[in-house]
């Protein structure tokens, strides 16, 4: 092994430790027997995991977050896939402008989107509601679907679809039999990003929080500000476990590699 290879290997290991260690500390703290977050821990206990289920707002908001992430992801796909397909093939000068506009939430501070949306949607009569929250989350999730689907679709030669139509397939059948299977990795990757973006979002959800619409990150923030116990660490560990399980399931069912290729 050459010196540069060794250096690269060492750098990779060091970087991996740098990334993993803080997460590992949080996981360890979630099993502490102490009533406060400190490391190293004095003893082991599962009581902070039990606390998650005792504190109703955690469970209520987890349910809201899951429901919201599903709605935002589905809505982003319904709106984003046709837009990505059209804009990828369009030769109009407007296509670039519209694409940039649809991707603009990626480059705007989330807190600005949240604050502006609160006033705009209130003015439109949506007020503080799940519907308003779902609309704003769809806006911030949409770029992920458009970007990944468009990236995959641009790599698909138009000749495939043209051949299907020449052979007599309708536009819808061509989409169903040819386009959809080819862009599926893009849809899967975009959906995964959308779901995680919505599920983890705080700055936008913050402005639409109410007793009925508070999401898990909003409740976690409110809890952390006035409580010192390690239940937030336990909740983070649980979230981490769910994310790992979701990735393993996605890998077994579909293959993570296909999704990473799409991005």
């Amino acid at each position, binding site marked *: 092994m050459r010196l540069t290879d060794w250096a690269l290997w060492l750098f990779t290991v060091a970087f991996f430790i740098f990334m993993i260690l803080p997460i590992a500390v949080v996981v360890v703290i979630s099993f502490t027997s102490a*009533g*406060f977050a400190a490391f190293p821990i004095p003893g082991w206990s599962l009581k902070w995991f039990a606390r998650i289920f005792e504190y109703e707002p955690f469970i209520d908001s987890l349910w809201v977050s899951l429901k919201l992430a599903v*709605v935002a992801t589905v809505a982003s796909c319904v709106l984003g896939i046709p837009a990505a397909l059209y804009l990828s093939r369009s030769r109009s000068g407007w296509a670039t402008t519209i694409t940039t506009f649809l991707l603009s939430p990626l480059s705007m501070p989330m807190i600005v989107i949240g604050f502006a949306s609160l006033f705009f949607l*209130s003015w439109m009569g*949506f007020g503080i509601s799940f519907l308003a929250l779902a609309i704003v989350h769809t806006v911030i999730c949409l770029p992920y679907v458009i970007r990944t689907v468009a990236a995959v679709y641009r790599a698909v030669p138009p000749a495939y679809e043209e051949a299907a139509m020449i052979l007599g397939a309708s536009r819808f059948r061509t989409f169903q039999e040819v386009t959809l299977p080819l862009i599926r990795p893009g849809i899967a990757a975009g959906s995964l990003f959308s779901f995680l973006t919505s599920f983890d979002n705080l700055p936008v959800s913050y402005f639409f929080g109410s007793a009925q619409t508070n999401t898990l990150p909003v409740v976690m*923030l*409110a809890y952390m*500000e006035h409580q010192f116990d390690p239940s937030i660490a336990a909740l983070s560990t649980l979230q981490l476990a769910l994310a790992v399980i979701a990735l393993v399931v996605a890998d077994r069912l579909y293959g993570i590699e296909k999704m990473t290729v799409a991005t």
Partner: protein
Amino acid sequence: MTLNRRKFLGTGAAAAGLIGLNGMPLRAQQNTLNVTAYGGVWEQAIRDCFVAPFEAKTGATATVSLGGPAQWLAQVEANPENPPLDVLIMTPDLAVIAAEGDLMDDFTVEKLPNLANIPQEFTDACLGKGTYFDYGVGGITYNKQVVSDAPKSFAAFVDRVASGEFVASVPSIQYGVTPVFFIWALNNALGGTVDNVDPFFEAMAKMKDNLVFWAGPNDFFNHLASGEADLGIYFDGRTWNHVDQGIDWIDFINPEEGGAMTAVAIQKPKNASDLAWDYLNEVLAPENQSKFAEILNYGVTNTEVVYSEKLASRVTPLSEANLPPYADIARVRNEWVDRWNREIGM
């Protein structure tokens, strides 16, 4: 598969069903009140001490929205004609801003009989459109295992930190009430005024080599627990909460000059449900406030409240705390933050 109008409408209906009934905007309902609370132990205390007696007396129900004052104020500002919240918990500076924006209703003894036992200055501090119901004091919290003879005053704190005797953990400017309970309090103790904060910034320059900054209260505790700091500027109630959690090495001193009173205000938005007056009256009731204080280890404002022996030794009396001029501070707050960013940067 073909997509016809019926299927399209069916899919739309299914999506609406998924969103659920609570997809509709939050509106004030005749027999339901939307109140606010901070998270964790605060929320439970609000439910037990105020929501429960309110529901028992009126037969109405109250939903509790968790979050923070900036979020709630923005929601009311966005919906002034039909506010989604009926009672707001506010920081004193935001309470002034809300009052100045004419977003809140006036508090009077006719509407709130228990207001008669709240010092008038607390209602005046909210420009008559709200009052304080709970307060903490910012002072010196220290690790008893490291600091045997803690500074008794802000002046001694500055001198001893500047000399390198202690490393102090102080709030960063990211923390919302830093301008009040740290900048104003220390500046006031060192002879400054709202329009002259030179004493504060000179003191910070002297201490700069021996300071660490906390962005949130949990950081402060971690600084002390890890040995990164020996003492710092923190709240009395939060210190006692740590003690109750079994941390016996922590203690609090209200500086001789008097720490800044960091109060919690309550307000009722204009056009909110009139049921809010019944709830607010419960919030100001001495028996409910007494119970609230026992849970949170913070002082309350009703003069009829009698603390337990344990709490009486912990709560900083109103007479030994300084009430910051919140309205004046709000006027110069941006200048202070700007100067902090230029000279301190954390």
